């Protein structure tokens, strides 16, 4: 109603809502902080896990997930609140970009907004808060880069760093007791890639049974397939032909072709021709003189028999990824036509030994002594599929971080060291800045400090005391101090060997502050009328 008493006409659609000013801000803060609080208990080496249970009917809906991975938790949550969605979004991006720190980024953004809310209550304009945050972010980033160290990629130090980083990443996961074992395993796998960042070449095979300790890295390459019956189970010095071709019957690819016959004889003739065509194809393949034939598509009995008769071991139905890996590992070319047997030296892959092995109860094919040694396989064992899934996610995180480190090469100390250093830098800066922005810079420092605080809290330690001691220790100039989460003291990160990848921290800081800024700038939320859905 305006002053004259006219009813304000309805501008938006029915059921659409518009929240302005304080109401809008309140909504975003509440939503974002709620999400951050939800995942914050998973942070750090003593963080707890969550059970995710899908809702709705159906068999697959009873499958639950137990996880500690921030991105996985947030991804599977359904939230209504728009600000909460932004937090989920940044966590997802963090996962795609660096693979780890997915919880940290959501928690940091949430803490920033929590501090922001306090500033707004003090009647500081959001734009001033943002201006302060921007200064703080730059200062923090500069400090972060300054404290990072770089080692030569081939040196022993770098290798040690990698192991330490993997250990740090894995320490917050389910396999923390076996982290040394797995850290070593991951580092070896990543180093095999020789600087390439293609995670596809590291295959992870999950097999229930045994204990986590039984997991291992296989030097060779394991294909989760079986050798066709009637073929040799062990081939030494194998020459491998990798193909992607139809081995059932060749479809005629010319459009509009129809087979029309007028007598039974003709049918037999065509059938014979078809058979001959396949035989012809097999002959062509034989000209390459392979000892092993791997095909992506399925192989019918007839060609299979022909190949087996010639003493060739046949592996059918290798999925696309598996095939690419075989090709990468053995140096083979993926063939679809077979008209150039003279190129056989180039196109065939080689490996010293192919054999069928049993892992647990499943038969697999193992390729050892491959020509190109890039691909490798991690075989995970564990008591249940839930554990295996979680271990898989943890290993994936660790591999991602390692690959990022190999690319970026810079590392920082872990145990909350980098956050505390950044917070200290922001506080120093706050003393120099004139105007209201200084409050925001201080707030940024507090938010950063919340990360180690939460890690302490999750571990059941007296966070207030520890963080204060931590501050003092840093002030004294002890650059490598950090939280010792086994004893609940401030320890030397160098001795404990806790390191983290700079890129992960960098990305978390940038993404969290960008998201917080985005939410802070909003003063109006317009929700459109939800689309009407047909009830299924």
């Amino acid at each position, binding site marked *: 109603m*305006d002053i*004259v008493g*006219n009813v*304000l*006409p309805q*501008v*938006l*659609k029915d059921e659409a809502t518009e929240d302005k000013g304080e109401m809008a801000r309140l909504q*975003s803060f509440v939503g974002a902080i709620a999400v951050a609080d939800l995942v914050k208990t998973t942070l750090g080496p003593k963080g707890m896990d969550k059970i995710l249970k899908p809702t709705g009917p159906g068999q697959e809906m009873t499958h639950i997930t137990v996880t500690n991975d921030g991105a996985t938790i947030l991804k599977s949550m359904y939230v209504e609140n*728009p*600000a909460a969605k*932004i937090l989920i*979004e*940044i966590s997802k*991006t963090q996962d*795609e*970009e*660096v693979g780890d720190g997915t919880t940290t980024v959501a928690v940091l953004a949430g803490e920033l907004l929590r501090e922001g809310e306090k500033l707004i209550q003090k009647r500081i*304009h959001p*734009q*001033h808060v943002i201006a302060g945050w*921007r200064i703080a972010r730059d200062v923090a980033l500069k400090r972060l880069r300054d404290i990072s160290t770089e080692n030569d990629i081939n040196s022993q130090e770098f290798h040690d760093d990698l192991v330490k980083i993997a250990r740090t990443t894995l320490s917050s996961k389910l396999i923390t007791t076996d982290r040394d074992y797995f850290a070593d395993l991951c580092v070896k796998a990543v180093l095999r890639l020789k600087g390439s*960042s*293609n995670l*596809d070449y590291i295959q992870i095979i999950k097999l229930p049974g045994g204990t986590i300790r039984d997991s291992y890295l296989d030097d060779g390459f394991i294909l989760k397939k079986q050798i066709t019956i009637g073929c040799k189970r062990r081939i030494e010095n194998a020459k491998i032909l990798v193909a*992607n*071709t139809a081995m059932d019957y060749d479809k*005629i*690819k*010319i*459009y*509009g*072709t*129809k*087979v*029309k*016959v007028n007598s039974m004889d*003709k049918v037999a*003739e*065509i059938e014979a*021709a078809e058979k001959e*065509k396949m035989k012809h194809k097999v002959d062509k393949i034989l000209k390459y003189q392979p000892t092993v034939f791997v095909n992506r598509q399925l192989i019918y009995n007839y060609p299979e028999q022909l190949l087996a008769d010639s003493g060739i071991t046949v592996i059918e139905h290798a999925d696309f990824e598996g095939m690419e890996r075989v090709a990468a590992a053995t140096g083979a070319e*993926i063939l*679809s036509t077979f*008209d150039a047997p003279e190129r056989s030296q180039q196109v065939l892959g080689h490996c010293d030994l192919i054999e069928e092995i049993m892992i647990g109860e499943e038969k697999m094919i193992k390729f050892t002594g491959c020509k190109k040694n890039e691909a490798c396989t991690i075989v995970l064992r564990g008591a249940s599929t839930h554990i295996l899934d979680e271990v898989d996610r943890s290993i994936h995180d660790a591999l991602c971080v390692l690959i990022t480190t190999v690319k970026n090469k810079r590392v920082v100390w872990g145990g909350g060291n980098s956050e505390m250093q950044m917070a200290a830098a922001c506080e120093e800066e706050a003393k120099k800045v004139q105007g209201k922005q200084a409050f925001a810079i201080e707030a940024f420092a507090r938010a950063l400090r919340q990360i180690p605080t939460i890690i302490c809290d999750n571990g059941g330690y007296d966070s207030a005391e520890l963080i204060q001691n931590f501050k003092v220790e840093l002030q004294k100039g002890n650059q490598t101090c950090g939280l010792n989460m086994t004893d609940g003291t401030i320890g030397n990160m160098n001795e404990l060997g806790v390191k983290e990848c700079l890129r992960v921290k960098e990305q978390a800081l*940038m*993404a969290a502050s*960008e*998201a917080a800024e*985005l939410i802070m*700038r*909003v*003063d*109006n*939320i*317009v*929700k*459109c*009328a*939800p689309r009407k859905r047909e009830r299924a």
Partner: protein
Amino acid sequence: MSLAFDDYGRPYIILRDQGQKKRMKGLEAYKSNILAAKAVANTLSSSLGPKGMDKMLVSPDGDVSVTNDGATIVEKMEIQHPTAKLLVELSQSQDAEIGDGTTGVVVLAGKLLEQALTLLDKGIHPLKISDGFDRACDVAIKHLETISEEIDIQANEHEALIQAACTALGSKVVSKRKRELGKIAVTAVLDVADLARRDVNLDLIKIQTKTGGSVEDTRLISGILIDKDMSHPQMPKEVNDARICLLTCPFEPPKPKTKHNINISSAEDYKKLYQQEQQYFVDMVKLVKASGANIALCQWGFDDEANHLLLQNELPAVRWVSGTDVELIAMATGARIIPRFQEITPEKLGKAGCVKEVQFGTSNERMLVIENCQCTKAVTILIRGGSQMIVDEAKRSIHDAICVIRNLIKDNRIVYGGGSAELACAIQVLQYADEVSSVEQYAIRSFADALEGIPCCLADNCGLNPITSVAQAKSRQLKENNPRIGIDCMELGTTDMKEQRIYETLSSKKQQIQLATQVVKMILKIDDVIAPDDY
């Protein structure tokens, strides 16, 4: 009104309403329309200026977008009210024509309507009001042209263009990196601009987004980025000194459009057909290879066999390249699009310095970059950011900046921002008002007030006292006869916009005032709203 009587006194119905139609007439209709339009303008007014706030919009499907761009806000609000919809169109036409100032135009229209409401209360006829607005608009436009300045876009490494881009980017979430992004936008536009004809084909600037990294990682690629990878995993990932064959026919046996049947009735036919089929693939690859091409880009798919033959012949290829990309590549590399294999000739190949596959993040996504094209007339801006919303908003912001630069290349006259141009026009219109002897005088005076509303709104958003700061700026403009005094939004200590280097294009300002006046005139002409009741 819906009922009338004929010569014999019998009633007859003109408009069949009977409670099924809503109807508003006269003053009630004017006021309702104005209020609805004002509601939209009010929503936008807090987004104006460098300290403006953003809006969070939730779509019917629950997707969130956060934006500061006027046209996007009103579009995504899903406005229902018919008059309010006019404002949506107003903002969109400013977007289509100029690309920037989409918030300003709506706010101005809102201010004009507010003034119209008080004039209506005074009992002035709506047509008189719109007449007065019209005349005032002419005066304002003329004055804008007199205070505009020509700038040298070439001077000092296009500094003026960068400043104008910064002004456009200043109000967005990416404002922290406005200078870097501004430079990227300027370089992009200048790369594709035809300075002799003063024309820029914006289609040549491709804006590609990719989440991850941060806004700082946004960069300009002097070439084309396509979201595809090589068709066969074992093809080389980098081709130097590329000769590109651009195909719009699939690597498959032909599919004639006319309906046909090939009947096979004997085994010989069957074999022949098979051979012919094999021959197709060989011929196709041979034709491409023979032309000297060392990379093939195809709009359609490949058959497995063709794919392998390409690999065997060391001819990297890309499949399913989108139609717009094909055109862009054709323009950039000087390639001719080839619809049939028979027509491949060496002259039709495009040339580029390098074609390579690049990889992002850990999620194994690859894109193809075509660099150093023969006729570098296409560029790509790759936008990065922490989340999809930031990337989307950055894309909109860069689009605005690009539009501003294009407008400056077309017409290098500028006015100064910070509300100074509006204030100067307001003063001029006010002077003119006193010369008019009819009722329109009041309308013209109100027009001046509405123009002052823009700097008022700016000051308000920046946390300044709107009335004091506008009054100060106005008196200084009059005293010093300096039309460049505006609102010091960034608190830099000077109100002279020339010193602050806040540039806006003349064409954008002119368009804003004209479009806003037109829409207001249109709304003022409506005196009867008839709508079905369930609407």
